[in-house]
């Protein structure tokens, strides 16, 4: 044969990257997301007649330890059963030798996009609380996510929240999770070889340093603090208790952060309900202000009653 034309070349480059689903019950539809270690495709499950998502390790990583990480992610997800986490249907190797796993197809928007449609601060905070739920659950099962950021959080059409991309999640025993445990090694073959796993800007300092520093579930608390900051801006940046909550969650020293996601959630709920938050010591005026705004209807009614008594007294 003579040379390959541009059209044929581009076509070949495209089809060879596509996962070879022959021998499975799925038909490839389209790529929907590109991650550090794998590509997620929409696929059609012929047997159950439904759309699914298939995550396939990228070609260049097929025979590296990353392929094992993909399988590891599937196993971790399979351990976790929660409405805020994607259920895994199947895991295995394709005919082309690449590791893959099949999961529920998630429909929705990434958090930062979805947040644009949520206008009021209380609504955003309620959305935020939904994010904390599956993560608190994962922590209770000894799993830390280590790469929490808006891009890994999907908000569905009914406001349901799903936390995705557990590719660099770590299983630590619950006993370990309470104390110094996990070391983030700079794994070779990550998107940036030699780089620390995770995403700068959302990553806890002890995780960003990498190497010998212990990383536990409080690294997730840090990331969640950063997410809260991005979520409430600019509407909530003037609220002192909220700012204090973020400051505590994102403290440089893990010991100065919330001890767990549950405590963070409790503080955000407290703020939402007009109760005092643990992260912030309010002065008397602030306390009275919060009390009045929390009970304004009741106070209004009592004042109305007293006013009327006075009126009846004067005009009797």
């Amino acid at each position, binding site marked *: 044969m003579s040379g390959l034309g541009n059209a044929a070349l581009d076509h070949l480059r495209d089809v060879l990257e596509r996962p070879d689903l022959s021998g499975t019950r799925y038909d490839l539809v389209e790529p929907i997301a590109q991650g550090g270690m794998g590509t997620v495709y929409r696929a059609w499950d012929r047997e159950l007649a439904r759309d699914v998502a298939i995550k396939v390790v990228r070609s260049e990583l097929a025979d590296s330890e990353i392929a094992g990480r993909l399988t590891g992610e599937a196993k971790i997800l399979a351990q976790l059963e929660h409405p805020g986490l994607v259920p895994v249907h199947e895991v295995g190797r394709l005919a082309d030798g690449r590791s893959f796993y099949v999961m529920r197809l998630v429909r929705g928007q990434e958090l930062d996009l979805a947040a644009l449609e949520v206008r009021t601060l209380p609504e955003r905070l309620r959305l935020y609380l939904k994010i904390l739920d599956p993560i608190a659950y994962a922590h209770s099962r000894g799993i830390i996510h280590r790469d929490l950021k808006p891009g890994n959080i999907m908000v569905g059409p009914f406001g349901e929240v799903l936390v995705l991309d557990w590719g660099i999640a770590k299983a630590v025993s619950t006993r370990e999770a309470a104390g110094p445990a996990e070391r983030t090694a700079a794994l070779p073959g990550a998107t940036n070889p030699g780089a620390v796993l995770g995403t700068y800007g959302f990553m806890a300092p002890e995780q960003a340093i990498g190497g010998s520093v212990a990383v536990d579930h409080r690294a997730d608390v840090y990331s969640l603090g950063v997410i809260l900051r991005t979520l409430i801006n600019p509407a909530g940046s003037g609220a002192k208790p909220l700012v204090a909550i973020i400051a505590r969650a994102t403290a440089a020293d893990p010991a100065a952060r919330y001890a767990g996601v549950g405590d963070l959630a409790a503080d955000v709920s407290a703020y939402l309900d007009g109760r005092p938050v643990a992260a912030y010591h309010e002065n008397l005026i602030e306390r009275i202000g919060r009390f009045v705004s929390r009970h304004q*209807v*009741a106070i209004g*009614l*009592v004042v*109305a*009653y007293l006013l*009327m*008594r006075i009126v*009846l*007294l004067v005009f*009797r």
Partner: protein
Amino acid sequence: MKKPVFGLILGGVLGVFDGLSALISAPETAPGIAGIVAGSTVKGIITGALIGWIARRLDSLLLGVVIGGAIGLALAGVISVMQKLSGQPPYYWQIMLPGAILGMIVGYATFTHRERKVA
């Protein structure tokens, strides 16, 4: 605490003070103050229990306040009519308006009150 019990107690307590307030607003009623206090307490208890009963079946704060006001108004109206029937000078709006607001307060408090589960 269950909502009817909460409403009953709150209504009763507020009813005691509401009745005592007659000493200030209408000192001429002082000799019969015991009857007044007893009446307004019973009225408060009935209002609170009724609202509590409704609050367990309804989940709207606004409706709770409105219904509370309506019950307070109606019971105070009944008392006025009874006053008239027993030959006393009736106080219509002097007791109906405060009764309505008290009903609203009881309604608001009872509807926002959370029943804590007893283990």
